[in-house]
């Protein structure tokens, strides 16, 4: 791997690791508060999975010369985080969190399926592991979103408003980053635009089949979003929602760097 490919790979790994870490934390906020006990457990388990994926990705960065995973998670300032804005937004109501998880896990599935073919073997192996676990998230999320979208009038309205609010942010999961073209040329990682297209083609027909209105249109085989994507996170431009998370997550480590728990 050339120096510029390594730099581009690190940029991408920070983006993916931070996405997993932050959405994992957002999901964990449902522990003890789930609307029913099954969902309390489901969100807690999915949160734990996402944290595991974050740890795997941070470990890969550590192997490439970056700090220890705990240091990366607990001691970086907000503007060093490269997560998309989609994952940092407050959890909202259960409909909002569930819809975000469906949109995010769809993106994760496309992304990590592609990464199983990476020419960087450690990343390909980690991707294969993540794909295994994401199957369960996908089944859970599609089942629940479908039931609620087709459920009562109130549940339908809540799922629709969550989707309408989240759609521009979820397009931001594919925000371009510097060096993506180098990674594509070296078969290390897929092109973000290609991933976005696959994700649109996966999500739009599915959500429409649930009776939801999607701000996108179809042309030939491909779907195109009708709203502007919300970018910024991949360049370290975040909302106050990320500061709130980091205040909560980093408080203990910053107060006592040697604390063990």
């Amino acid at each position: 791997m050339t120096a510029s490919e390594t730099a581009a790979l690190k940029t991408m790994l920070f983006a993916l690791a931070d996405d997993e870490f932050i959405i994992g934390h957002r999901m964990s906020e449902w522990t003890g508060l789930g609307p029913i006990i099954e969902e309390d457990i489901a969100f807690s388990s999915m949160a734990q999975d996402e944290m595991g994926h974050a740890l795997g990705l941070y470990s890969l960065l550590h192997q490439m010369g970056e700090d220890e995973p705990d240091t990366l998670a607990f001691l970086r300032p907000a503007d060093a985080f490269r997560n998309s804005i989609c994952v940092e937004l407050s959890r909202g109501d259960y409909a909002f969190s569930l819809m975000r998880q469906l949109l995010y896990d769809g993106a994760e599935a496309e992304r990590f399926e592609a990464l199983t073919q990476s020419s960087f073997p450690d990343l390909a192996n980690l991707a294969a592991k993540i794909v295994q676990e994401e199957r369960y998230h996908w089944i859970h999320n599609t089942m629940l979103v479908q039931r609620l979208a087709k459920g009562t009038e109130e549940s339908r309205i809540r799922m629709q408003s969550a989707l309408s609010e989240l759609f521009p942010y979820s397009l931001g999961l594919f925000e371009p980053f510097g060096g993506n073209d180098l990674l594509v040329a070296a078969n290390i990682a897929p092109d973000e635009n290609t991933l976005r297209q696959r994700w649109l083609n996966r999500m739009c027909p599915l959500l429409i089949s649930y009776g939801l209105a999607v701000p996108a249109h179809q042309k030939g085989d491909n779907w195109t979003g009708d709203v502007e994507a919300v970018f910024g996170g991949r360049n370290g431009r975040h909302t106050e929602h990320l500061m709130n998370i980091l205040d909560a997550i980093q408080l203990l480590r910053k107060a006592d760097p040697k604390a063990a728990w």
Partner: protein
Amino acid sequence: MVERTHPYSEIWDALNTVMDPEIPNVSLVEMGIIDEVRVEGVTVHVVMIPTFSGCPALDVMRDDVENTIMSLGFHAEVSIARKPWSTDRISESARNKMKTIGLAPPKQHGGNVEWELFSPVPCPWCTSENTTIENQFGPTLCRAMYYCNECQQPFEQFKPL
């Protein structure tokens, strides 16, 4: 250091007594979590494969493995492999032991997990296939929750991976 004639089998036997912290009657060897054992002089290298990437039991297992190796008089070097673990690595003996504690074992799927995800899960108590999934997620990352309509008992399934 005592001269050892069969260090490998001795080490594997010892590791076979290290139990999975979440399945107390099944060892890490039977779970297929121990991938490799290599002896170099007085050091034993053990490679482990985590079941689920967010599994909090991994650190406990790692400590248990290190302590076991050290109790045999070796230095322990334990590393975690990144390759994906699969439930196909679980031994037949472990599958039978799981049933005795009310845990439905995953079937061998040969890589075809998608099919396995939607096939009926027999009750570990009464073997009936008249069972219903209650939750894809359970008390640990590796388990789902089911209910047997036949013997009317709840049970857990070790998820196929």
